[in-house]
């Protein structure tokens, strides 16, 4: 998270990024398992496998920076320090989950970690970081707020409204597009007349850069500049290219793309690339990395077991959290019916 000055620190950070990416992948595999066991709340589970290179962006953030994510946001959140147990509990709709079983996979958040909320409306969370940037500017807090979203959101008008406002008011804001080439079954060139997204961002007054998401260190280098600029009032845009290894959500078998394309896409694996580089640069050997992989797997196994052991939320909790508890709450229908029938 800090700007590592010594070579040693840089090396540790690279290894840490690998570990974070591995933890994300292991986590997402457990989400898949949860679904197969019929224990997830629904099937609207969007795995970020293949997109772990975004860790280069999350690592460029500082403690206290805030962010919003889209429906495929597990990886970003984990990288920012989320507790996998509470995440899985939420995805399973349990009382111990981050959102008390009310939000689920698409609405996970932890205010304490700066997560202002995952959003199931494509583009829905983007303008929130403009507002956060406004608060930070006025509070002179030095914080930055970053929106994470997919290439699909590049076709939502609200993005350009938000970009323009951030640039106009010179807010500490970063827009990060994880371009995994697809919005559901639609390849990006069937959705966007021009796929030069950096040019779009620049036309709205932002500093823009595109980074190869298969190379987490390259992403990290690019992101550091973007965040430094944003912190100084020059909001920026960063595109992280990736390939969505699996279907859009758990039920999707991706019939709209060929096996060859998928094989090719999966060869751009940020984990394999990082592993090779760590070994080539002598920062770790295969045994170290295997151990680290196993640890990540074991951690997530434990998390899964703990999460699925958590209790379900009590029915009455349904009426909580609509409004602040010091103000009038919704009246349950049964109470209302009783009032009417006994009137």
């Amino acid at each position, binding site marked *: 998270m800090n700007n590592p000055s010594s070579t040693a620190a840089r090396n540790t950070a690279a290894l840490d990024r690998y570990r974070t990416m591995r933890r994300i992948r292991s986590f997402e595999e457990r989400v898949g398992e949860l679904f197969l066991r019929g224990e997830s*709340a*629904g099937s609207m589970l969007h795995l970020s496998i293949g997109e772990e290179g975004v860790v280069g962006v999350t690592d460029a953030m500082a403690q206290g920076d805030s962010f919003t994510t889209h429906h495929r946001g597990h990886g970003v959140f984990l990288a920012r320090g989320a507790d996998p147990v509470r995440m899985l509990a939420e995805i399973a709709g349990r009382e111990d989950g981050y959102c008390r079983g009310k939000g689920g996979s698409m609405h996970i958040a932890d205010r304490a970690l700066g997560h202002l909320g995952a959003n199931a409306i494509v583009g829905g969370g983007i303008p929130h970081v403009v507002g956060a940037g406004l608060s930070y500017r006025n509070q002179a807090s030095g914080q930055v707020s970053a929106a994470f979203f997919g290439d699909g959101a590049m076709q939502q008008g609200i993005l350009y409204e938000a970009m323009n406002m951030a640039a106009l008011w010179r807010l500490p804001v970063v827009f990060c597009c994880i371009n995994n080439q697809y919005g559901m079954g639609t390849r990006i060139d069937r959705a966007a007349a021009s796929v030069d997204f950096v040019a779009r961002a620049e036309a709205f007054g932002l500093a823009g850069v595109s980074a190869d998401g298969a190379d987490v260190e390259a992403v990290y280098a690019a992101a550091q500049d973007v965040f430094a600029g944003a912190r100084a009032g020059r909001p920026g845009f960063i595109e992280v290219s990736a390939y969505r290894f699996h279907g859009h959500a758990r039920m999707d078998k991706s019939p709209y793309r060929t096996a060859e394309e998928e094989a090719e896409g999966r060869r751009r694996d940020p984990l394999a690339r990082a592993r090779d580089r760590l070994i080539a640069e002598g920062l770790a050997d295969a045994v170290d990395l295997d151990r680290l992989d196993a640890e990540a797997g074991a951690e997530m196994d434990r998390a899964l077991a703990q999460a699925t052991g958590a209790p379900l939320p009590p*029915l009455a909790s349904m009426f909580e959290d609509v409004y602040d508890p010091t103000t009038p709450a919704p009246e349950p229908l049964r109470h209302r019916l009783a009032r009417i029938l006994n009137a």
Partner: protein
Amino acid sequence: MSETTYREALRAALEDAMDQDPAILLIGEEVGLYGGAYGVSRGLLDRFGPDRVIDAPISEPAIVGTAVGAAMTGSRPVAELMYVDFAGLVMDQLANQAAKSRYMFGGQIAVPMVLRTQGGTGRSAAAQHSQSLEAWFLHTPGLRLVMPATVNDAYHLLRAALTQPDPVVFIEHKGLYTLKGAWDRGRPDAGWGEALVRRPGRDLTIVTYSRMLHESLAAADTLAARGIDAEVIDLRCLNPLDEATMVASVRRTGRVMVVSEGVLTGGVAAELSARLQELCFDQLEEPILRIAGEDIPIPVSPDLERASIPSAGLIVEAAGQLMRREVAAWAR
């Protein structure tokens, strides 16, 4: 007369209509190659080609706006909004443009389009993918509003929507796509704008629509076993609204429950309740009860989600109390 699913009936309606009317276009996210998020438009891209089955970017406001412009110029577009929850993105194009164009322009410019979408709970899809927002559309003069509950209606109401001169919001229920039922390609259950008595009864009228029809019918069965004979009315269309069928029933039974999945406050159930009270006041034996969604966002956890909307159980419970209340009143 054959049997099929709600999904397949919708697909067949699109296919048959597009066959007959070359002006019909489909436009929406994933309607083509993917076949629709819920599979309703499967096969139509192959059949009608990319000029008529148009995969759109994730740009809901402009999708609906495009449909408006296409409708003004000789096309008959079906814009698909993947979830009714995204209505908040398109209400300007729908309520300020599609609905008002004929009026603002003094009758010159018609907008014969259909907005197809789906709503409701049942898939643990949480607060932004599970809503029932028909009340927003009902409150918008200029729109027609249809919510089919049965397989045959899925087919015939969509066919009828595709002949209307004005914009129609057509809301499917995500929980009904796999419903199987009787389908007669040649004969609708009833005309456009007509409500149907799906189950006759003498003691109590239940007015409902969309998926709640099935909960209401199940409740009526249980009630029958307890000696309460409920009449169940399926509205089918909310605009135009068939007041006459409801009123005739209520004047006969004197007791009404309106059942709707949308949240209670400010919902369609309120409109139905208000109307029936106005027109059946002298015949009402008991207060009109609204059985509707709780006034909360939809929670993701499956048990909570289920408990947040009406069920057959709740309908039975409320009906039982409503009938008992009468006795209590006599006893007073």
